[in-house]
C-alpha cells in the first residue's frame, strides 16, 4: 500500500491539483465513514429529536442515555461476550486446520493437488443458507443446538477455504532451503512446519486470522437459527431484540450497533495494512 505514493496512474496527473485531491479525498471518506457516523449521531439523539421535521444532522443535545438503555434493556455485554467467544474459538480452529492443510498443499508433492484446490474453491462458494435445514438437523442430533460449538464448527468451515488458499500462497513464498536446513538439523516435517514455516509466514497467518474473525463476527443467519437461547445469542442476533412487539426504537438500536461496530473497527484500525495485503495478495490467488 505504501508504494502507492510513488506509483502513478493516468488519473493521478489528471487530478494533481490540491483542491481536486481534497475533493476526491472527501468523497472517499464520506463513502467509507458516513453511514457509521450517521448511526453514531443517531445514537446520541433522543426519540423526540429523531422524529422532528426537518431532521437534524448533528445531535442538538448529545446524550449517552441510549447507551445506558441499550445495556439495560438487553444483556448487550453478554451478546458481546458470546460474539467474541464464538469468533475467537472459530478463528483458532480455522487457523489450526488451514495451516495444516495449506502446508500439505504447498509443500508435499500431491498427485491430486489441483483437484483438492478446486474442491476447496468450490466449497468457498457454497451458499450456507441452503444447508440451514440439514445443519440444523445435525446440530440437533448431536445435541449442539444452543451451544457455542453449533456456531464454531460452521464458521470454521466458512473461513477455511479462503484462509487455506491464502496460506498456500504465503507458504509457497517461503524458501524451502530454510525448512530443509531445519530438517537436516534433525527436525521432522511437522516440527519444521511449526518452528520455521509458520513463524516466517506469521503475517499471512495473522491476516488469515483477522479474516476468519471478521467472518464469524458478521454472521447472522446461522446464529439466528441455531442459537436462539438468550444466554447464547451473538451480537447481530441480539440487536434484533431491541425491536419490540410494536416498537422500533431507532436511537437504542443505533447505540447497540455502535457498540457492535467498535471492536471490529479497532481491529481494522490497528491492523489495516496487514488486512489489506492479506485480502489482496493471498486471498484471491487461485
Amino acid at each position, binding site marked *: 500500500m505504501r508504494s502507492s505514493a510513488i506509483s502513478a496512474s493516468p488519473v493521478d496527473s489528471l487530478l494533481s491539483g490540491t483542491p481536486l485531491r481534497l475533493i476526491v479525498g472527501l468523497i472517499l471518506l464520506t463513502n467509507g465513514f458516513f453511514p457509521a457516523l450517521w448511526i453514531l449521531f443517531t445514537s446520541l439523539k433522543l426519540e423526540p429529536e429523531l*422524529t422532528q421535521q426537518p431532521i437534524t444532522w448533528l445531535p442538538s443535545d448529545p446524550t449517552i442515555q441510549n447507551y445506558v438503555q441499550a445495556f439495560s434493556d438487553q*444483556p448487550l*455485554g*453478554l451478546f458481546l*461476550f*458470546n460474539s467474541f*467467544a464464538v469468533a475467537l*474459538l472459530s478463528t483458532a480452529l480455522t487457523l489450526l486446520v488451514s495451516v495444516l492443510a495449506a502446508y500439505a498443499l504447498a509443500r508435499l508433492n500431491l498427485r491430486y493437488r489441483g483437484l483438492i484446490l478446486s474442491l476447496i474453491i468450490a466449497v468457498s462458494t457454497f451458499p450456507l443458507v441452503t444447508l440451514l435445514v440439514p445443519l*440444523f438437523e445435525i446440530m*440437533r442430533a*448431536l*445435541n*449442539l*443446538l*444452543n*451451544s*457455542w*460449538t453449533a456456531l*464454531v464448527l460452521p464458521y470454521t468451515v466458512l473461513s477455511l477455504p479462503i484462509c487455506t488458499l491464502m496460506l498456500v500462497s504465503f507458504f509457497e513464498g517461503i524458501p524451502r532451503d530454510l525448512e530443509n536446513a531445519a530438517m537436516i538439523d534433525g527436525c521432522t516435517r511437522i516440527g519444521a512446519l511449526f518452528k520455521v514455516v509458520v513463524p516466517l509466514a506469521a503475517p499471512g497467518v495473522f491476516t488469515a486470522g483477522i479474516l476468519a474473525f471478521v467472518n464469524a463476527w458478521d454472521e447472522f443467519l446461522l446464529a*439466528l*437459527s*441455531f442459537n*436462539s*437461547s*438468550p*444466554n*447464547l445469542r451473538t451480537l447481530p442476533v441480539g440487536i*434484533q*431484540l431491541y*425491536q*419490540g*412487539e*410494536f*416498537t*422500533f426504537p431507532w436511537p437504542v438500536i443505533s447505540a447497540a450497533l455502535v457498540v457492535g461496530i467498535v471492536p471490529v473497527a479497532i481491529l481494522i484500525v490497528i491492523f489495516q495494512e496487514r488486512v489489506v495485503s492479506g485480502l489482496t495478495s493471498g486471498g484471491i490467488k487461485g
Partner: protein
Amino acid sequence: MNFKTSAALLVAASILSISAGAAYAQTELKVYISSQHQPDLWRQALDKYEASNPDVKVVIETGGNTSEAQAQYLNTVMTAKDSSLDVLILDIVRPAQFAAAGWTSPFTEVDMSAYLPAYADANTVDGKVIALPAFADAQFLYYRTDLLEKYNISPPSTWEDLRQAASVIKEQENNPDLQGVSFVGKAIEGANCTFLVPYWSQGQELVTDGKLTFDHDAAVNALSLWKGMIDDGTAKANIAEVATDDVRKDFQAGNAIFAVNWSYAWAQAQGPESAVAGKVGVVPVPRMEGGEPTTCLGGWEWSVSAYSTHQEEAHDLVKYLASPEVSKFMAINGALLPTYGDLYTDPEVTAAAPWFANAKAVVETAKPRPVTPRYNEVSEVIRTTVNAVMAGVSTPEEGADLIESRLSRILR
C-alpha cells in the same frame, strides 16, 4: 458437549450472575415470556406462587419480542425437542400449530366455560384444551374526542361514517399533517387483521373447520375499503410502511383523528408524553355498510411444553397463571384485558382502568384469526398481499385472486 457446559458456566459466572445458589431439592420451572409482556409484573405474580409453593422455583426466560420472532424462536427450540422450557406464552394464533406438531401437553379437567367464549374456543383444538388464556386483547377504534365534539360529530359506527367525519374535520382543521385514519399496512402480523375485520364484517368466514371458505367479493370489498381511503386521502400515502407502533405514535402525536389499534395504545395515549392525553375515546371498530360489527381477537395463552420434564408442576403453575386472581392482578397493574367476563365490571378493575367497562362488549364481538396448523403460511400470504395492495403494487382484485390461489394450496 464440553463447550456447551463450559460456556454455560462461564456465562453464569462472569456476566449474568443468575440468581446463584438455589440448587437444593426444588423443582425449577422455566417460563418463557416475551420481554414486551411486562415480565416484571409476571415476576410479582410468580413470587406469590413461589411463596405458597415453596418446593417450586420459577425462572423467567425472555426473548423474541415480535410475534414472528417469538414463533421463530419457539420453532427452533421445539423442533430440537429441547426440554429446557416448561411453560410457554403463545400468541393466540399459535395453539393449533403447536397442537398439530405435538409440542404442547393438553389440559384435562379444566372448566373452559369460565373464560370469555372466544378464548375457550381459541384454546381448544379437536376437543383438547391446548392452552389457558393469559390475557385478552382486541382491536379498537381510537378517536379524538376533542375534534369530534368540536364539529359535533358522533363516533362513527360504519366506515362510511368515518370517512365523512374525517373529510369534514380535515377540511376544517386545515392541517396537512392530520390523517383521517391510521392503521397497519406493513406486512406484519397485524396486517392480517386489517384484511380480516372488514372481510368478517360482511358475514364471511375465511376458514371453516380447517377448510378455506373464501368469498372473493367480500375480499375485494375489504381490500378496496382501505385502498379507497388511501386514494381519497383519508389515510396517508405511505400507509404500507406503517406498523402497529407507528399507528400509536401518529395518534399520540395528534396526527390522526382515528386509529385502529390494540389495547396497549390506551395507556400511552393517555400518558404524560402524549399530545392528546385526555382527548382520547375508544369505540368498536366500524362495520361495513349493512354489515355486522366485529373485530380481531388478540391476546396470549399459557401452554405447557410437551418436552417438559415437570409436567405436573408445570400444569399447576399454568392453572394459577390463568386464574381469575392473576387475571385481575394483571388488569389492575398491567392494564391487560381480563379473560374472565365478570372482571370487566369488577370495581377494583374499573377503578384502575375505567374504559375496561366498555371494552367487554368489543372483546365479545371479536373473532379469532383462522385456526389452522399452517397459520404461519396463511398469515404470510394475507399480510404480504395487504401490504402489496396498500403500496399500490396490486389492485384489490389482484390481491383477492392471489390470496385465494395461494390459500387454496395451503389449506387443501
